């Protein structure tokens, strides 16, 4: 048919204009983050000997399953180490950027009725999809070039221009693979959430497929290469710099895009190929209350985060057996996980493993608590988002008091804080004990002591939760700033290993600083009681103000 692509050019310009901020931010984050980390490897592992030692610790099935094959062993350059540890994650990050990008300009536009407006103008039937894909190509090309030049510009010895450009191009192509996948699912699914979800599922499957191939002994390259991510890693960037994966990736992208175009050309606007299955005609009993609705709205988020916390816990537990080798002898690394210098100096080979696993355990407890806070804050923020989107009034105008309405969400948030901490602790214990055997795991990784240290963080979580509720009650329009406070708490925890960086009182603003480092120290019950009391006061104040304010619709 003639004119299928009419006016694509103008639409591309329009999309790039809509993208000028968000895609720029994505690209800057990806490029700058990559550039900052490159010299870091040289600092941490300054000579070939330490790098080779580290490579040896990476060469076990669990680490390879997580990060991919280790190339260049024997002459393990900083570049080899960098691409081995970073390329996979940066490709997946680019994938996430592209999934959002393409769904935003295809299915989401269609769902919101914007695509219809565009289609009614003199534009070709396939122009919208075409423009979205061309825009993705342009955005990924810019990212690839900047990333390549940026890495070469870091001046790390083994990271030359050729290898860096290959690194950039592979990242861009991986991004485009997921742009194509998202374009395909935007045809198949009839709504934005479905297209995004299926694309993310594909991302996960691609990661798992290459993990399954890589974890075998010897590595099953054929299986790993079914995944574009595994394929891209076969370029052995900064080691061999093979080009062939580039061409195969381009072919894969082309095929998926052609299928997407074909599907787009034979379907009607607003329709998808996966039929929207009808839902319940009547509500289950469990939905029929204000609290039932809150549970229903937050259920998926809590289940997904439960799995994430469990999986993260399990993945940390799996490296416990080789923890001393994993952390290595690098004093910087030992400081990062919080081991004081005087202990590092006195550490003997005999007690090294025990000391490191203890400190490592404490370090990841605070890190995992921060991750576990995310679903808790999401749950606590839900009533505010419902209010903003005009949905809270449905409930509040039907004989449900403000207190009762808010209480449902707050209760869920408190309970999910306990769920998340338990999920991590149990995940840690199960994988640590299955890798090392019940007898092999150190005392500090027994279930009882894990639960003790994870649950001892609850009062700190509750203070942040209390702040969230107070802000919702008192400053609804500014409630987004709770994420800023959360970011501050994260930052303070990250730099906890470097206590001299900031004045002591700044660290005290974070409730995490009052939690004793179990099992290194004993639980400080006085502090826990004080934090819990503070959380209760903040929560009560939040309710008090929420009850006596207007609903705010923006």
């Amino acid at each position, binding site marked *: 048919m003639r004119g299928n692509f009419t006016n694509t050019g103008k639409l591309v310009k329009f999309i790039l204009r809509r993208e000028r901020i968000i895609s720029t931010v994505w690209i800057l984050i990806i490029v700058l983050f990559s550039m900052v980390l490159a010299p870091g490897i040289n600092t941490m592992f300054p000579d070939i000997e330490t790098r080779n030692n580290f490579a040896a610790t990476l060469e076990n099935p669990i680490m390879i399953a997580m990060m991919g094959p280790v190339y260049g062993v024997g002459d393990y350059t900083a570049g080899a180490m960098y691409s081995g540890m970073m390329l996979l994650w940066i490709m997946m990050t680019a994938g996430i950027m592209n999934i959002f990008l393409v769904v935003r300009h295809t299915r989401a536009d269609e769902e919101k009725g914007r695509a219809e407006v565009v289609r009614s103008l003199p534009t070709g039937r396939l122009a919208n999809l075409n423009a979205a894909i061309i825009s993705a190509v342009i955005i990924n090309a810019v990212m690839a070039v900047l990333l390549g030049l940026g890495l070469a510009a870091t001046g790390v010895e083994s990271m030359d221009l050729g290898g860096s450009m290959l690194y950039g191009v592979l990242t861009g192509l991986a991004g485009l693979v997921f742009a194509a996948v998202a374009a395909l699912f935007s045809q198949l699914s009839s709504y934005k959430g479905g297209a995004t979800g299926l694309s993310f599922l594909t991302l996960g499957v691609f990661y798992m497929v290459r993990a399954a191939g890589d974890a075998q002994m010897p590595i099953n390259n054929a299986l790993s290469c079914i995944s574009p991510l595994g394929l891209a890693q076969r370029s052995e960037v900064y080691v061999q710099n093979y080009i062939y994966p580039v061409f195969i990736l381009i072919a894969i992208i082309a095929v998926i895009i052609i299928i997407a175009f074909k599907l787009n050309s034979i379907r009607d606007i607003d329709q998808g190929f996966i039929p929207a299955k009808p*839902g*319940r*005609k009547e*509500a289950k009993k469990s*939905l029929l*209350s204000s609290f039932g609705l809150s549970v229903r709205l937050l259920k998926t988020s809590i289940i997904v985060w439960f799995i994430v916390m469990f999986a993260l816990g399990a993945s940390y537990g799996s490296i416990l057996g080789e923890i001393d080798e994993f952390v290595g002898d690098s004093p910087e690394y030992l400081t990062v996980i919080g081991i004081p210098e005087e202990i590092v100096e006195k550490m003997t080979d005999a007690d090294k493993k025990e000391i490191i696993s203890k400190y490592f355990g404490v370090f990841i407890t605070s890190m995992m608590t921060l991750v576990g806070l995310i679903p808790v804050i999401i749950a606590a923020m839900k009533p505010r988002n419902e209010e903003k989107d005009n949905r809270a*009034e449905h409930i509040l105008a039907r*004989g449900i008091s403000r207190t009762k309405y808010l209480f449902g969400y707050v209760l869920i948030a408190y309970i999910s804080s306990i769920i998340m901490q338990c999920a991590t602790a149990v995940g840690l214990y199960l994988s640590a004990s299955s890798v090392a055997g019940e007898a092999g795991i150190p005392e500090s990784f027994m279930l009882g002591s894990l639960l003790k240290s994870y649950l001892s963080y609850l009062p700190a979580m509750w203070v942040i939760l209390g702040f969230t509720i107070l802000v919702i009650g008192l400053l609804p329009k500014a409630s987004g700033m709770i994420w800023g406070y959360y970011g501050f708490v994260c930052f303070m925890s990250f730099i906890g290993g470097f206590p001299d960086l900031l004045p002591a009182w700044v660290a005290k603003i974070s409730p995490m600083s009052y939690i004793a480092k179990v099992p290194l120290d004993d639980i400080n019950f006085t502090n826990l009681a004080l934090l819990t009391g503070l959380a209760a006061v903040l929560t009560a104040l939040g309710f008090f103000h929420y009850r006596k304010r207007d609903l705010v619709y923006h």
Partner: protein
Amino acid sequence: MGNFMLETKDLTKRFGKFTALDKVNLQVKEGEVFGFIGPNGAGKTTTIRCLLGILQATEGSASVFGLDAWKDAVEIHKRIAYVPGDVNLWANLTGGEVIDLFVSLRQKSDKEKREKLIKKFELDPSKKCRTYSKGNRQKVALVAAFASDADLYILDEPTSGLDPLMEQVFQECVGEKKKEGKSIFLSSHILLEVEKLCDRVGIIREGSVAQTGTLDELRFLTRINMNIETREAITGLEAVSGVSGIEKTVKGIAFQVENEQIPEVVTFISKFGVTRLESKPPALEELFMKHYSNENVSTTSATGGE
């Protein structure tokens, strides 16, 4: 408080420096259908939100069933049904689930009534709310409201997304509730709807109530626009009572006439040999502009012109 279902006394609401409502006075009697009309942005929704205790009055008072709208909100809500003007629903829930939820928050649901209403409004309750159009989301809220056994129905522009056929269904539902002796507070900017359904009308403009009364008392609301062409030039029409706003058009004249004067006017103009006659109800904005333009110019130069 007497036996008013709903009453506001000098109800004033300010958002910062902006005055959204300025001394609004309204009364709705039991068993009455009250039309609350005004152009977009006049303060209809803000008034309703004050009546529901979602917003707190800055000054003055709002009461429903003789109870304070803010302090006794929960008590009041147990006896009212509300349809918001902008119905936002949960993307993952089906229409049927939302209806059940809404009804059950107040009372045990009456399955038969629910099925009847779903059929009447031609709603597919098995679809997820994300797939519903504005009209369909409104139907969900309307079904939930009419399936509830309330004493007072507060409806905020409930038909703005419905097609004419569904407007008809809506009017039937309002009629039924009225027959049962329920009170209805209906905000709208569609005159025809108000004319068909309402016993009394309150007009809100720029945050204050300009007039209240029966449609007979607010006769200007029921004027009809007429556009006629005649063989002979019409003379003496301005002397006929109920006629106003005479204007010359390209081939004839246009004017407004009050509903009950139509027989006299038609008799009068037929003498001139009518070749073309067009009549239609004017839009609310048009009526308001004509009716209030004089006082606007003279009294409020700051807010006038809109």
